[in-house]
């Protein structure tokens, strides 16, 4: 039994140009998507702005009713067993806040109670997580007085508090310092490995997605257009970037890339061009034969970011 199964999920928003009498307009934000989150898997959720990621997450949390389709957690229908399911499903988002006039400890205590975490486990768990995320000293500080990074850490603690089986993380490391972000990533992977937690993960940081996610779903205009590992998606983009520092023969290099119809960029003696990975060796030989002398060469293999950019460009 999979922790989460989504079948033919759609969401269409209806609105009128003017209240009551206006023309009815329809917008489909999520269009017939189906996917599965496996046990102990970190599933990345990628897509350009407006692709339907947030709408899908809202439906998965039960704060937005789907127009069509089924959501099942642990083999049970979400619409019929909402409360029972949500005890094991938590979330953290950089875009959702906790009450600013409540202290850190108070906010986490309220969250623990909401998820029916009994005492003394609740207090012990809050203490250990606050210490792990290095914000124990902030426990009596009002949430409104925290920095963006500290707020994000409190939100992640909130998500981990009830020992969930599934966590929905919406850009959890946005606004974190790089060292803390790395710690959070490592912590997430550790939770997955040690406790078999399944995680749905959205992020705009492609390196992060590549590092953390086992599989990635790519959404575009409300539809899933790809479902594969980050590596496989990156490999689907055949173009690599070759960077050269040219000491002489710059004109010949430009002539070469123009003749081969390659995309290139030149700033001073820094020269880079985009080429199929399989053609790199022959291109470098051809450049050398045409009198191009370079002092350094570096090659960027296609990454998930390249894939994401190609999807976004197609979107436009």
């Amino acid at each position, binding site marked *: 039994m999979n922790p989460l199964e989504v079948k033919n999920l759609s969401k269409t928003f209806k609105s009128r140009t003017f209240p009551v009498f206006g023309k009815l307009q329809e917008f489909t934000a999520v269009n017939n998507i189906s996917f599965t989150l496996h046990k102990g898997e970190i599933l990345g959720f990628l897509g350009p702005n407006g692709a339907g990621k*947030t*709408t899908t997450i809202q439906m998965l949390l039960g704060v937005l009713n789907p127009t069509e389709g089924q959501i099942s957690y642990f083999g049970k229908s979400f619409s019929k067993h909402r409360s029972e399911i949500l005890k094991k499903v938590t979330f953290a988002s950089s875009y959702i806040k906790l*009450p600013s006039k409540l202290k850190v400890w108070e906010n986490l205590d*309220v969250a623990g109670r909401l998820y029916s975490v009994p005492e003394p486990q609740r207090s012990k768990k809050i203490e250990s997580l606050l210490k792990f995320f290095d914000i124990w000293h902030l426990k009596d500080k*009002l949430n409104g007085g925290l920095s963006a990074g500290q707020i994000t850490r409190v939100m992640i603690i909130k998500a981990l508090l009830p020992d969930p089986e599934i966590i929905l993380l919406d850009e959890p490391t946005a606004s974190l310092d790089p060292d803390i972000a790395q710690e959070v990533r490592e912590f997430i992977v550790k939770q997955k490995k040690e406790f078999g937690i399944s995680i749905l993960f959205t992020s705009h940081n492609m390196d992060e997605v590549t590092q953390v996610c086992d599989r990635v779903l790519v959404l575009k205009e409300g539809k899933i257009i790809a479902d594969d590992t980050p590596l496989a998606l990156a490999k689907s983009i055949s173009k690599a970037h070759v960077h050269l520092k040219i000491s002489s023969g710059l004109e010949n290099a430009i002539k070469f890339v123009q003749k081969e119809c390659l995309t290139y960029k030149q700033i001073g003696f820094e020269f880079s061009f985009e080429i199929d990975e399989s053609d790199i060796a022959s291109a470098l030989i051809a450049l050398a034969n045409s009198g191009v002398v370079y002092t350094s060469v570096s090659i960027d293999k296609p990454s998930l970011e390249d894939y994401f950019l190609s999807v976004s460009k197609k979107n436009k």
Partner: protein
Amino acid sequence: MNFLPISAIFFRHLRFMLNYLNKLLFTFYWPFLDVLLWGFLGKYMQDLQGSNNNLEVILLLSILLWACFARLGMEIFNALIEELWTQNVINIFASPITLFEWIAGVLSFIILLSVILISFLLLAIKLFYSVSILYLFKNFIIFAPFLFFSGIVIGFLILSILIYFGMRAAEIAYVIIWSFMPFSGVFYPVESLPAWAQKISSVLPMSYIFTGMRAYVLQNVNPIPYIIKSSILILIYGILFLFLFFYMFNKSKNKGLNRLTD
């Protein structure tokens, strides 16, 4: 019903009130000011008439009962406004808590608040007036539960609007609750109102309680018929507005609760 989620809502609002002095001030200052203004006005008018017609007691009782209705009715929808204002609504409704548990949590906080508020106002009356607190309290306790339930019922009507329209309707919520005051006969008999306004009064549970209270204190008239009429209306509106709230909550989820904070 699970106790822990209910306690979460209870402590969430209690701690907010204790941490935020403005909220404490807002809840206690205005009813206290009402006690001073209306109480001294009643005392002055009683002295002016040279009569012993309990005008001072009537006005003080009216203030206490109105506090039960309006202040505590307001606290119900304030609980939701507070979640919308702090963008906490998703944290609450994406948790396992049921809507009944949320309501139970809010009501348990309001019951505690009402006990503290009324005790505070009775203490203020003791300090500023020579009225017997025991006499005042005995009369108050007969009518207070019905005003309290009326406040809850009207609170649900306003919640139904807020849960669909979100922060855009926050100002309207306060307008609605205070708009009941002139038709409820808080400080004057509903017979003083024009005929069309009396028709509105006749469908408000609060108007029967204030009328019954005045008849009982001034003329020792049995208040039971007034209380029965008020209770029937509370029951009808209670069922109606509770269903309306659940219906509007689900309708709001068709558009997404996230939009409510916009």
